[in-house]
């Protein structure tokens, strides 16, 4: 029997193998177990190439050739939203005004032949919304992501960060039960990123969204998520799961809290351990540097084994 307390997403023993061009198998994910509760925001971090994006694509239903069990029932209503992609009778249900899931992709996913407004409206295609409700949603999300003045612009007239905000707006407009985000803020400049982090957190609180958030930015993961999952180096397994300190502080104030810094360091160490990096301040082993272990000293000298991961730690 279903109960509202069941997890929204339950992944058991998920294993994903890619077949390379010359027939060699690449193990992306190995026996991943993960549960995401309804209304929970889970961030997934890990070394480059550990299968974060693959995990997200499986959840989005974009990758269907995997082994293991992926079950989801994001709406909490019997018969709706639960593994809906696998078909099943959908007739007789109340008109949908929310999409079961929506994905924000890492790469630019705006359609260059549609205006900003029509890019966002595209996501609403499958929903039963009258024109006025759709207009209102498009207007609201564009306002939210700071693109209110550009509804008729084409993506090629915008910066990369603005295009990514269009993609975020498109996903948010569908008010998805499950929101899947793959490094959604990576293309944004540092200031906008912080603003967007706060905006996303506010929206999620308001809409009780269930979110799976892939990022390479440890601080961002701790900032936006309720729980952070660290995947190991390829093949990706769940190495560590940590609950983040929930204080209700703003995105910037959060950084001042000790629990925040401690968790960032712990997560960084877990990832660094995965890729075999150890950090020590240049030329000394005194504990003086321990107040900012993942700080600016991070890339110095030790960067060679895995460049991208070092960058993730310093970000």
């Amino acid at each position, binding site marked *: 029997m279903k109960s509202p307390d069941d997890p929204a997403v339950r992944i058991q023993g998920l294993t994903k193998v890619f077949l390379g061009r010359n027939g060699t198998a690449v193990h992306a994910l190995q026996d991943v177990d993960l549960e995401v509760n309804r209304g929970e925001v889970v961030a997934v971090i890990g070394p480059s190439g550990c299968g974060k994006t693959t995990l997200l694509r499986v959840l989005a239903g974009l990758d269907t050739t995997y082994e293991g069990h992926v079950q989801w029932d994001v709406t909490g209503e019997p018969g709706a939203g639960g593994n809906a992609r696998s078909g099943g009778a959908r007739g007789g249900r109340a008109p949908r005004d929310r999409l079961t899931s929506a994905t924000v992709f890492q790469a630019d996913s705006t*359609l260059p032949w549609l205006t900003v407004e029509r890019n966002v409206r595209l996501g609403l*295609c*499958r929903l039963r919304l009258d024109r006025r409700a759709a207009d209102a949603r498009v207007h609201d999300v564009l306002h939210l992501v700071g693109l209110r003045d550009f509804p008729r612009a084409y993506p090629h007239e915008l910066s990369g960060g603005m295009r990514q905000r269009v993609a975020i707006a498109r996903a948010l407009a569908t008010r998805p039960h499950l929101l899947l985000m793959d490094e959604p803020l990576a293309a944004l400049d540092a200031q906008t990123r912080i603003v967007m982090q706060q905006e996303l957190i506010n929206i999620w609180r308001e809409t009780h969204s269930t979110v799976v958030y892939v990022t390479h930015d440890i601080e961002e993961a701790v900032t936006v998520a309720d729980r952070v999952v660290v995947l190991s180096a390829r093949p990706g397994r769940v190495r560590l799961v940590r609950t983040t300190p929930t204080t209700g502080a703003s995105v910037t104030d959060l950084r001042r809290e000790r629990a925040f810094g401690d968790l960032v360091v712990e997560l960084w160490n877990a990832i660094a351990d995965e890729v075999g990096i150890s950090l020590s301040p240049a030329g000394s082993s005194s504990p003086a540097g321990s107040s900012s272990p993942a700080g600016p000293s991070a890339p110095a000298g030790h960067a060679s084994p895995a460049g991208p991961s070092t960058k993730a730690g310093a970000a």
Partner: protein
Amino acid sequence: MTTGSSVRDTPVKSATMAFGDSVERLRRRRTGEQRKRLAWAILTPVTLLAIWEIATRVGVLDARFFPPPLKIISDSFGFLTDPQLRHELLHNLGESGTRLIAGFVIGTCAGLAVGLAMGLHPVTRYALSGVINASYPLPKLTLFPLMIIFFGIGNMSMIALIALGVFFMVCINTTSGVIYSSPIYDDVARSYELPRLVRLRLITIPAAIPSVISGLRLAFGQALIILVSTEFVSGNGGIGYLIWNSWQVLDVPMMFVGLTIVGLTGWLVSVGINRLGRTLAPWQSD
């Protein structure tokens, strides 16, 4: 009073004026660049024509085979004033135009339809790509006898051959436009559960447009080649016949008039297709 208000207005006004100035400067720079491009585009051919003119006047080039450009121009005015010559020219142009347009339209429609089917439906693609890739590299003129067997001597066989050449270009480019468009568009379509028709209209077709446009451009060049060469050999009139016949009777100015018409047509249509591409796919900057 008036001075008071003007003082208050000054900062705002000067700010907008400074802004207007820089916009004006940008505009001027852009038109300047356009003028420069146009000037060079005209200067080069004019210089070449001038060299030709001088070379024939001083006897470096044989004026019987390379009549000076000014003579060709004055002769072509003669074709326009002389009723019989004018009728001949217009008649041949009409013949060629009919063949070209009919062949191009038929070939384009068929190419778009088959190309789209091959792009959207893998089994169709597997089934047809072998045949198409094997027959595409054949010089189309080698198939002219076959076309005559199928469609008889006359317009039909020539139109069929033009359509065939156009078909290959458009079909291959449409197919690759559909299958090699960015996979992210496909992800978006699936992620937002777009219905099949919406997907075709808002994603598949627009994504293929740039490739289709370049297919059309190549196809028109191909169509002109096939048109002129079939007219060379068939003797059924047309601009190709006019060129070949003028050469045979050593009416060299008439031959050059024919060449100029073919060249101008190719150039103008290519410009037109480019413009069409920029209108349909403004995000593509080429």
